[in-house]
């Protein structure tokens, strides 16, 4: 890129050109989404598990926003997932909003409020304090949901949730076809928004904050402000993921708040790699397929294999594990003829 000496020759159009280059679609990205949408026709019998993958991918995307882009370690991201799930469930159960999309948006907004409020708790302290606070919030919410059983159904879960057909036309069916189209659509739209945000100047400033908060604040980036903003956004995403699960299952339970869910999510993201948006999506696919396969092998001791996987990933090194995507990315940049012509 430009050396500091030449900065005076950089014009506004250069800068916007730079951002446009960052935001350009790679051919591989297009292939990825074509493949994702082709499952609608190619794998109609797998739509139930594909729905779960889509929801998990959205949830992982949400964690990636704060972990991969802002560097906040969270052990309690399930708090937002569960909160969104219960908001959507309560809206549907009490007949307040039975329109699924509207309920989804309201759940997302409600969760973002929770994220905004709790973000100030996360700003303080070291990694360990953050771990504790995020974990503590998830546990507190779980206790609350357990305590007010007349509202939430307690340990029995929230049942009798009414969800109208999507757009008033597509009823949720028993084979999960509608649920899958719906989840995949929501995932795609939210992914586009996340992609736009990450490639914006705001996204770049987040990376600066992650790399070095002190220097970031020295070039007048408001560190706390950025962290609050991204944490709120990530909470909304997680809440929407939870709400999606509630709507497609017509059920919500205390297990949504569990520590296991937050830990699983970390594993998903680590498999796929942090700090680029596809990490969560790829990780979700690999995780669910592994889960399916290993559960058939030894249904009870899936936990053991997951633990072993985590240990091995760390011992081998996360960079090397997620390094398998690097050839793909290289290929992508080589395929990208437009980028090359620009450089020369």
């Amino acid at each position: 890129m430009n050396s500091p000496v030449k900065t005076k020759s950089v014009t506004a159009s250069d800068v916007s050109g730079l951002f446009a280059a960052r935001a350009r679609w790679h051919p591989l990205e297009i292939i990825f989404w074509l493949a994702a949408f082709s499952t609608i026709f190619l794998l109609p019998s797998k739509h139930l598990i594909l729905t779960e993958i889509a929801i998990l991918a959205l949830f992982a995307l949400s964690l990636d926003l704060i972990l991969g882009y802002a560097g906040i370690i969270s052990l309690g991201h399930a708090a937002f997932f569960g909160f969104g799930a219960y908001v959507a469930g309560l809206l549907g159960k009490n007949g307040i909003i039975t329109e699924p999309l509207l309920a989804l948006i309201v759940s997302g907004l409600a969760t973002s409020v929770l994220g905004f409020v709790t973000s100030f708790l996360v700003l303080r302290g070291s990694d360990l304090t953050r771990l504790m606070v995020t974990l503590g919030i998830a546990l507190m919410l779980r206790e609350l949901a357990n305590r007010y059983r007349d509202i939430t159904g307690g340990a029995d879960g929230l049942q009798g949730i009414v969800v109208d057909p999507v757009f008033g036309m597509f009823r949720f069916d028993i084979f999960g076809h509608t649920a899958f189209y719906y989840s995949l659509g929501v995932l795609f739209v939210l992914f586009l928004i996340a992609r736009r945000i990450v490639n914006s100047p705001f996204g770049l400033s987040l990376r600066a904050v992650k790399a070095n908060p002190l220097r970031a604040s020295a070039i007048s980036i408001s560190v706390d402000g950025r962290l609050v903003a991204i944490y709120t956004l990530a909470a909304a995403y997680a809440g929407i993921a939870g709400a999606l699960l509630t709507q497609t299952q017509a059920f919500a339970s205390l297990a949504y708040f569990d520590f296991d869910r937050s830990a699983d999510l970390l594993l998903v993201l680590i498999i796929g790699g942090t700090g680029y948006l596809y990490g969560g999506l790829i990780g979700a696919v690999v995780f669910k397929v592994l889960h399916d396969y290993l559960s058939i092998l030894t249904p009870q001791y899936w936990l053991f294999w997951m633990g072993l996987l985590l240990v091995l990933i760390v011992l081998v090194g996360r960079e090397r594990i997620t390094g398998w995507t690097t050839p793909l990315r290289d290929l992508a940049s080589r395929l990208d003829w437009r980028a090359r012509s620009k450089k020369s």
Partner: protein
Amino acid sequence: MLTILFDGIAYGMLLFVLACGLAVTLGLMNFVNLAHGAFAMAGGYITVTLVNRLGVPFLLSLPLAFLASAAIGLVFERTLYVHLYRKPHLDQVLFTIGLVFMAVAALDYVMGSSQVYVQLPEYLRGRFDVFGVGVGRYRLLIIVVCGLLTIALQLILSKTRFGARLRAAVDDERVARGMGINVNRVFALTFAFGSGLAGLGGALGVEMLGLDPTFPLKFMIYFLIVVTVGGTSSITGPFFASLLLGIGDVAGKYYVPTLGAFVIYTIMIVVLLWRPQGLFARSAAR
């Protein structure tokens, strides 16, 4: 009222023995070890096996549990943990969560998923009255054992050469290395000792806390609360934090049972916001 206080103190003392190893690990190497509870669980299961299957006297099984857990701790430290000290916190968290999951599933496989009990000898059962306060014999034993351990720990830390080295390493690892202290060895020994203490705590806790394969997950948050609230720069901090937590938890469960553990989590978050370095940390904490 006094009985609750007494039970709370016993519970707190137990928590302290369980968690003080974690405080040292965290303070010395800045290592986030979420798998600490697994060592405690190992001690608990060793005691249960020794007492119930082999007929070893309960009091004799306690030091055996300590030694076995310490040995396991030493092996794990030398073979696995040693690679992770320089890695980021995220790696440490992932690794130790992985270890916990493996321990949980492995013990489920070997020992079954149901809760296990230890057969206490006759003289440790029941309770007697002292000036109208009901005192459980077993809880009295816990207070005595843990109290002695605490005093011994304090003496080791403040009076012995090893304690001085340990304190030096905690205060400033690099300078300690520069002074010729073998920090790695100090740390390995301390880790083993901390794991042993956790194992002892787990053995003592079978009767009070209950023991099943999910033990490390259930109590992880308690250990972490003790350490974060108490700070990692001394052992008096975690000690008072454990007592507070023990009494608070027992009293909370007695007076407002419907709130469950809610009180504890709230207190923890408030304390962390008020003093992120821990309630009893020195101001110059790292």
